């Protein structure tokens, strides 16, 4: 049963740039998918189509069976959590409040505008924080945390939504190798234990191979590879990472070195 269904989606930006040139794919519930590709391939745009941060200019996107459109944008977003490369926390607010923003869609907005939350929301936030191992930092200001910790807050925020899907847009690109490892393991664990579907954008091939059930390779707005990590060979990597103009691609060499 596919929880995310993309049918012939295209995305052309107002400046004329075609980021997605016709993609159809289904993401199975409970799976861990990694979207791999060079920068500019359209990975970010594809991910953002899945929670409505980008609207396709052609085709359609379906989440948990519903077509994503203006009317159900908020409702759908509440079921889809997102983790960002730059963490995107509100720096001045405490860790707890940041996590609580995950509950906003579930609350009637009148109370939330006054920063009022129900006790059950606080409990959900506590749970989420415990899950990512940050209970002791609950009352710290978000900007006082390290990069890895901030990303964990981002994940806690997504978890607080009690989502069906978690999307992660280059979650470890701004982190050191140790923190990157921790974050990927946390995401994998969330997928395995809680059955949440996880879709991650990465450009690091080694991480993709280690953590993914399925790898979707993208290049220039199209899917050029779709398979298991074991099917990822130097040849297939070449199709993902190739660029027409450049004969010798250091990106490619690096990727191949890890293959």
């Amino acid at each position, binding site marked *: 049963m596919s929880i995310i269904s993309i049918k012939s989606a295209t995305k052309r930006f107002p400046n004329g740039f075609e980021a997605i040139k016709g993609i159809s794919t289904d993401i199975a519930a409970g799976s861990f998918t990694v979207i791999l590709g060079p920068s500019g391939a359209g990975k970010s745009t594809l991910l953002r189509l899945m929670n409505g941060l980008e609207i396709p200019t052609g085709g359609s996107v379906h989440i948990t069976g519903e077509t994503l459109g203006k009317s159900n944008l908020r409702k759908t977003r509440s079921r889809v959590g997102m983790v960002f490369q730059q963490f995107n926390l509100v720096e001045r607010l*405490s860790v*707890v*409040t940041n996590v*609580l923003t995950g509950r906003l869609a579930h609350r009637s907005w009148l*109370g939330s505008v006054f*920063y*009022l*939350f*129900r*006790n059950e929301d*606080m409990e959900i*936030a*506590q749970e989420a924080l415990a899950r990512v191992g940050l209970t002791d930092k609950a*009352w710290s200001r978000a900007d006082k945390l390290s990069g890895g910790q901030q990303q964990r807050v981002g994940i806690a925020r997504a978890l607080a939504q009690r989502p069906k899907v978690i999307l992660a847009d280059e979650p470890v690109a701004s982190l050191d190798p140790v923190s990157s490892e921790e974050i990927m393991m946390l995401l994998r664990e969330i997928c395995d234990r809680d059955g949440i579907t996880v879709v991650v954008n990465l450009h690091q091939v080694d991480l993709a191979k280690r953590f993914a059930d399925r790898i979707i390779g993208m290049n220039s707005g199209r899917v050029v590879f779709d398979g298991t990590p074991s099917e990822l060979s130097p040849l297939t990597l070449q199709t993902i990472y190739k660029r027409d103009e450049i004969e010798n691609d250091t990106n490619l060499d690096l990727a191949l070195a890890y293959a």
Partner: protein
Amino acid sequence: MTPILIWRWPTRNGLPPLPAIASVVTVLVAMWLTASLVEVDLARLIGSLGKMAAFAGNMFVMPDWKYLPQLLGKMLETIEMTFLATAIALLVSLPLGLLAARNATPHLIVYRLVRDLLSLMRAMPELVWALVFVSAVGLGPLPGVMALAFVTVGFMGKFFAETIEVVDQKQVEGVTAHGAGWFQVRMFGMLPQALPDFVGTVMYILDHNLRAATVLGLVGAGGIGYDLVMSMRLFQYDRLLPIAVSIYLVVTLLDRLSDQLRSRIIHGAQAKI
């Protein structure tokens, strides 16, 4: 975290943070205490809505076309006052700003004196100074220009002083190391660093001064202010609307211009020196 009620704030004790409560309470108490001083009266406010509507209705009459040339003349005068006063003020505040900057002043006493002088100059609104200067030099645009320039020097002087105080010392040292004299160090080491902020601030000052200049006429210091008040007092609605509209147009025009200029500056320009 023991649950107190069903709802709570995201803090350790469930109540809003102390600074937030303290400031809100202070303001509310102050307002409650001063309500009578300000003669706040909801009934009076609501009762006046009718009058306001009537007033608005009265304003929309056929403009007095014969008055237009005088209106344009007065508006031009207002604009000229603004520019002249600002230009004079800029000239005067440059050296004053240097003297009022801790790292550029020749002596600490000079620094303190000039700082306090600048503080006094900008303390009072232009209209008060205009009153004083009208008393001194008579009616006309001159006291208006003086008043505007006076207050602007107070502001610009402080601005220059503060900008000079945060200049990058390394650049100053570089210039000094090449044997620059006292004046040259300030001219070539300090002032160029102050310039980028400068344009934005000048635009802001022009904007502020134009608005101030429109009312100086109230006390006889030139500009459209006199006509404005008189037309209200004499119920000359056929003049009031054109006056209000022209003030609105000129102020808005300058506002948009300054926005445009500021965004151009932010997006960079060729170095001219």
